[in-house]
């Protein structure tokens, strides 16, 4: 479902150029659970953000669900992110001025889902992650683990094909981390494709495949 060939990414130009990716080839079939590991600066986050259509590669091919991503316009990419992709970030990235329900509703609003249906869907998702009783709270009133669960509910809003998670447990204590990884495991069992970046072996151990990055390249891959 995801296929990249010869993917490179260069930031800046001339002497100041930074080669974040130096030719990456990878295929991720539907339903896979992939962990990407590597030291900081190895290009793993850049890779995730290209897979997530948040930025474009400098060269190379990227096919997502059969579509040539490089050929898409910005608005088409926005649509793709909205309907096919879900994101979970290290720092949760919830909207601080809106309540929990509104945060989960956001992708549904952009998708044009009518408000009744939207609210119902957001409530269901929040109940699934165990936050059905916190709908009207502001993000700041929740613990880190709870905030990340809101973010997961939001990522699932439009029932996406793939979930991209960038160090989702990086800001959490051990107990919350386990809870969050439990949810990821459930999603995987339910057939969702997951791509997760981490530098913690414990977290990577949840994945079916672990891919190691170094200096902008894949250096090693393990499969369970």
């Amino acid at each position, binding site marked *: 479902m995801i296929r990249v060939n010869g993917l490179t990414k260069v930031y800046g130009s001339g002497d100041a150029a930074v080669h974040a990716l130096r030719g990456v080839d990878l295929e991720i079939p539907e339903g896979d659970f992939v962990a990407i590991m590597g030291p900081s600066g190895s290009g793993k986050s850049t890779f995730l953000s290209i897979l997530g259509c948040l930025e474009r590669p400098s060269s190379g091919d990227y096919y997502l669900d059969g579509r040539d991503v490089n050929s898409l316009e910005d608005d088409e990419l926005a649509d793709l*992110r909205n309907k096919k992709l879900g994101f979970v970030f290290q720092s949760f990235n919830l909207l601080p001025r809106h309540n929990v329900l509104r945060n989960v509703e956001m992708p549904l609003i952009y998708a044009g889902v009518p408000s009744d249906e939207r609210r119902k869907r957001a409530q269901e998702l929040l109940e699934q992650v165990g936050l059905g009783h916190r709908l009207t709270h502001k993000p700041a009133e929740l613990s880190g683990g709870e905030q990340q669960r809101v973010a997961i509910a939001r990522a699932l809003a439009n029932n996406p094909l793939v979930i991209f998670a960038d160090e989702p447990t990086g800001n959490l204590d051990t107990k919350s981390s386990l809870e969050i990884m439990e949810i990821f495991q459930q999603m995987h069992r339910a057939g969702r494709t997951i791509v997760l970046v981490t530098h913690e072996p414990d977290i990577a151990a949840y994945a079916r495949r672990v891919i190691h990055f170094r200096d902008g390249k894949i250096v090693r891959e393990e499969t369970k």
Partner: protein
Amino acid sequence: MMNFADLVQIVWENLRAHRLRAVLTTIGIAIGIAGVIAVVAVGQGGQAVIISEIEKMGSSLYFDISPDYMRGETADSNTFSIEDPTIIKELSPAVDKMAAITLGPMVDVRLPSSDKKTIMASLYGTNPDLIHIMNLSLEKGRFITDLDVTSHSRVVVIDAGLAEDLFPKEDPLGKKIFVQDTPLTVVGVLEKAPSSMMDMFNVRSLYSPITQAQDMLNTKVINQLCGTAVSEEALPQAISDSIKILESRHSSVSNHYVGTTLEEQLEMVGKVTSILTTVIGAVAGIALLVGGVGVMNIMLVAVTERTREIGLLKALGARRRDIMQQFLGEAVALCLLGGLIGMVVGIGGAFAIALAAHWPPLISVWTVLLAIGFSVIIGIFFGLYPASRAASLSPAEALRHL
């Protein structure tokens, strides 16, 4: 695509988080809109009052002759003479009544008993015809007579306001008052004009024989002649006759005579008030401009502060247009809020000024709609740049922003 109700809700939730900032940002717009509404309302109310006052003062037959003020000319002791009205009436069949006026704009009036409390009033030195020309009516007593004029009689006719001020409980007829320290006998009291403009400015008027007034004011200057024509058709004839006669009688005088009808006076009032309205409106417009720049500034701050958030919204599937809408929506909401505050303050201010000045505030629906519409346009204009800056951020870059 976001629908309008969602947009309104999201904008509201965002602005509510920074209530103080939002309100402070709107102050400039509020002042501008309040200014526009108040100025227009007070201006139109004032204009309506002045026009109705002028209309009340004379019929359509009214005209006056004065030196050409537009060229900076003023009357001197040779411009008019006391005999002019009589001679013009004799020579021109078009002229019906005519009076000369020597004006003492601010004279001290007091009772003989007290030398402390004085009242400021306008003294009209004139002759008997003025009562007909100005449509004045007497409540009691008599007006000035020809004999009063020839014999420099020390008599005075006072208006209702002055009668109330000086003689709240007594009959003023036959009483003495001191005008510029000259004792005069009250021989007549004018009827109270309903809601007279002179009343609302607290301007009191009194009328004396022109000869006596000139003695008191120590002048030989007559400020203007005023009169009525025999018919509306004869009005141009009456004016041109009067000017011709004056020019031949005062051939040594260098100034030009100008005749003005009531209609022309009304036009002039219209011109003056519209110039005033424009000038003050322009000041209010500058306040709006400054307010708009303030909104733009705050929106640029918001875009910088919320860069990461914009990146996130893009990751969630917001298109360029969605981000534009949201930030433009916030700018418009700020301006609209300012506009509404300004509207309330402006209407309140117009009523307060009108109450103090005793004239009706004329707040037209159009002024209000225009002001509100204008504040929305300001919001769009000054919100466009910050919003497009927000919308053009790349999602990955915006997310990396701290």
